[in-house]
């Protein structure tokens, strides 16, 4: 089983390796790590830390996409969660209550999406678009249109603090990703989610409760998005409902796609999506370290991502496969010869 997982994530590992190599080429000090004031500093640490929001979003998004759905509202949910957390601490509620309130808000958003999709059968892209558009408005209502700053050390710790020298957000996304992977693969949830993503009618007729499962995956994305929202707000010590998590839903979807998960649903790998999130963050890092003018950032990012997706496209994969398997393993020689002959003839 381990071997299977490794084979599954091999492309993502290779791409990550290449992008990290690019980082090293443009900035030879990329791997150096320093220890100062009880905290590790270094570009690698930065990638792991800055990648936290997208990694968190990608964890939930993987499950939604596995059911053939999509959640466009996660960026807006981040804004709502940040706003809720900020307003609770500024009202003197303490960091833990603020976190709980933010997560509850995320779950509420998730259940809204989930019910639209599972019960009212609204197409996921449309259903979640509602909250994507309305969410920032809700966030602004909570913060009363301002950037709501706070200085509660407990809450700030979640975004900017360290534990044993490593930034807290790294723990948050690793634990969250690991936990959900564990739950999904140790129970039958993973298979059941894949089943409804592949063929919902068959799954329902086989007795799978697709409604409950659908609501559940949107709850998970809402929860993950809220966590990401808290991390981002804590990092900048304030809730900015206008900008928090802006366009981040797209990065999350991209992470899932780079992770080799099909947007058509079915088989999924959370670990591969997490690697996808790290790849995106490493690409950001290359652009930053190469000192290119920031105007180029988005263009270069787009180019790199096109290359990554191109390499993963079925056509190219097939070409690589053909290149490697130029002699069919089972074919007796005589058939192989015939085969070559046909190939030549059809070429001429």
């Amino acid at each position, binding site marked *: *089983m381990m071997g299977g997982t490794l084979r599954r994530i091999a492309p993502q590992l290779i791409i990550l390796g290449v992008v990290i190599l690019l980082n090293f080429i443009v900035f030879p000090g990329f791997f150096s790590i320093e220890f100062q004031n009880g905290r590790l500093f270094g570009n690698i640490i930065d990638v792991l830390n800055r990648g936290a929001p997208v990694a968190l979003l990608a964890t939930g998004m993987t499950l939604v996409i596995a059911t053939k759905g999509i959640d466009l509202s996660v960026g807006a949910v981040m804004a709502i969660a940040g706003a809720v957390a900020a307003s609770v601490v500024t009202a003197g509620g303490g960091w833990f209550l603020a976190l709980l309130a933010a997560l509850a808000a995320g779950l509420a958003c998730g259940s809204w999406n989930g019910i639209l999709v599972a019960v009212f059968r609204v197409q996921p892209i449309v259903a979640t678009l509602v909250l994507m558009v309305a969410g920032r408005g809700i966030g602004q209502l909570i913060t009363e249109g301002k950037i709501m700053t706070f200085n509660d050390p407990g809450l700030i710790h979640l975004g900017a603090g360290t534990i044993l020298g490593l930034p807290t957000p790294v723990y948050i996304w690793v634990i969250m990703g690991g936990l959900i992977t564990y739950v999904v693969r*140790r*129970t*039958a*949830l993973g*298979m*059941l989610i*894949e*089943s409804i993503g*592949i*063929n919902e*009618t*068959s*799954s*329902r*007729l*086989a*007795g*799978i*409760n697709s409604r409950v499962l659908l609501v559940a995956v949107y709850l998970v994305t809402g929860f993950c998005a809220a966590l990401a929202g808290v991390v981002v707000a804590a990092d900048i010590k304030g809730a900015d409902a206008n900008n928090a998590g802006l366009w981040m839903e797209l990065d999350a979807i991209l992470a899932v796609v780079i992770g080799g998960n099909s947007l058509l649903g*079915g*088989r999924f790998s959370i670990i591969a999506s997490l690697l996808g999130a790290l790849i995106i963050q490493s690409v950001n890092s290359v652009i930053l370290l190469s000192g290119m003018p920031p105007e180029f950032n988005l263009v270069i990012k787009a180019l790199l991502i096109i290359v990554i997706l191109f390499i993963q496209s079925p056509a190219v994969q097939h070409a690589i496969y053909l290149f490697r398997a130029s002699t*069919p*393993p*089972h*074919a007796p020689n005589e*058939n*192989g010869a*015939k*085969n070559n002959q*046909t190939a030549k*003839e*059809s070429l001429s």
Partner: protein
Amino acid sequence: MSTTPEPVLQATGVSKFFPGAIALDDVSLSLYPGEVHALLGENGAGKSTLIKCLTGAYKRDAGTILLDGKEIDPRDPQGSLALGIGTVYQEVNLLSNMTVAENLFLGWQPMRHGMINNREMVKRSKEVLSGFGLDIDPSQLLSSYSIAIQQVVAIARAVELAGKVLILDEPTASLDREEIDLLFSVVRKLTERGLAVVFITHFLDQVFEISDRATILRNGRIVGTRELANATQTEIVTMMLGRQLEEAKKERGKAVIGETILELKNYGRRGTIEPFDMILHKGEVIGLAGLLGSGRSETAGVIFGSTPADQGTATLNGEAIKIDSPRSSIHLGFGLCPEDRKTDGIVGDLSVRENIILSLQARRGWTRPISRAKAEKIAEDYVKKLDIRLASLDMPIRLLSGGNQQKALLARWLATEPDILILDEPTRGIDVGAHAEIIELIQTLREQGMALIVASSELEELITYSSRIVVLRDRRQVKELQGDEISIGAIVRSIAEEGGAQL
């Protein structure tokens, strides 16, 4: 049918390898103009694979194909279509979210001022379909019609496009006698025009009825080609199986009928099936007979809860029950093996193992996963019991041959050990050998005390195992036959009583 010396299509030395399986090994096939050529073999013998290699749906690993003496190498089904080879694949590949007319004319739509001329397309669709005895509205979505109609649409499309060769992979599996007759008359017209027709089926009667020659495949190899005028069914079956077929128990086993398990009163669903009464006992098989669209599958769906009843009452073992979803009925010990295995049955990308344990797992709930080892054991048991041919339990079920998918679905439901098992066309796409085994299996299950409801269009099969037969017409139960009343003649009479077969 005189066989002219020049074959229209000649395939030589075709081989196809899959990981863990040699699907075709040095297969050759010649088709002559004006002949109907049957392609026969067990489930998994390689019939569909051969077709796909000929049309370019699969890339063959070896072999040459000549069309009218010239070598061809179609890259994809479109390529072979352009060459005049029209094909209906076993899994009908139409676009269910497009209209019937669009499906018929996809790729060659009538144009007007650079736009698709929709009115013309609908009009011509009507003409084409009426040639198949189908009077439906072609501007409706394909998905709004039954699988049988979809099958006819696929056939009509292939027939319209086939200039030289028409290939039909199990076209009659979901058709009634009446549509089959229409199909055969179309086929005869085509062969008179000099087309060659390849016909794949597991119905030997139909083979002898329409075909001139038959080529038999076994385990990916050619066993032989026979002129059917001087061959017998037994001979052909022996070639297919590599052994003699033991006759299935023909006598209707005297059922030992136990106590009542399920009682339905005035049970029905508006717009789907008229209310009916039914009493089902342990150890008995109720057969559902009727034409396509008569309400066989609808009855099954209402009992199972996939389209829940909206009137009437149900009692299970004397207790009132309410069935509002497949989930609720599965928990009560029901199972339904559906008619349309592709859309309602298999979960294509999941492995055979996962597909077999799917319902069992769904019933246990997500918190109690079936361990890998246990799943493997269950799946292996049924693979052996039902003789499912596969390369590995881990292969996606969509890669199995049609008949083997059907057996795997049967395994899924047997694995839940239901008290009441509803089977909708259980032998669809199953080969002659396995056919007899499944009939025997149904009888064994019944003897073990299971209660079964079986819908089938194969009356001969139905009367073998049913202790009672319910005849349906126009979504209504019109007759119940018991004991000595049961005969094919009696069923056919009650089906036809008011004439007017409707799709």
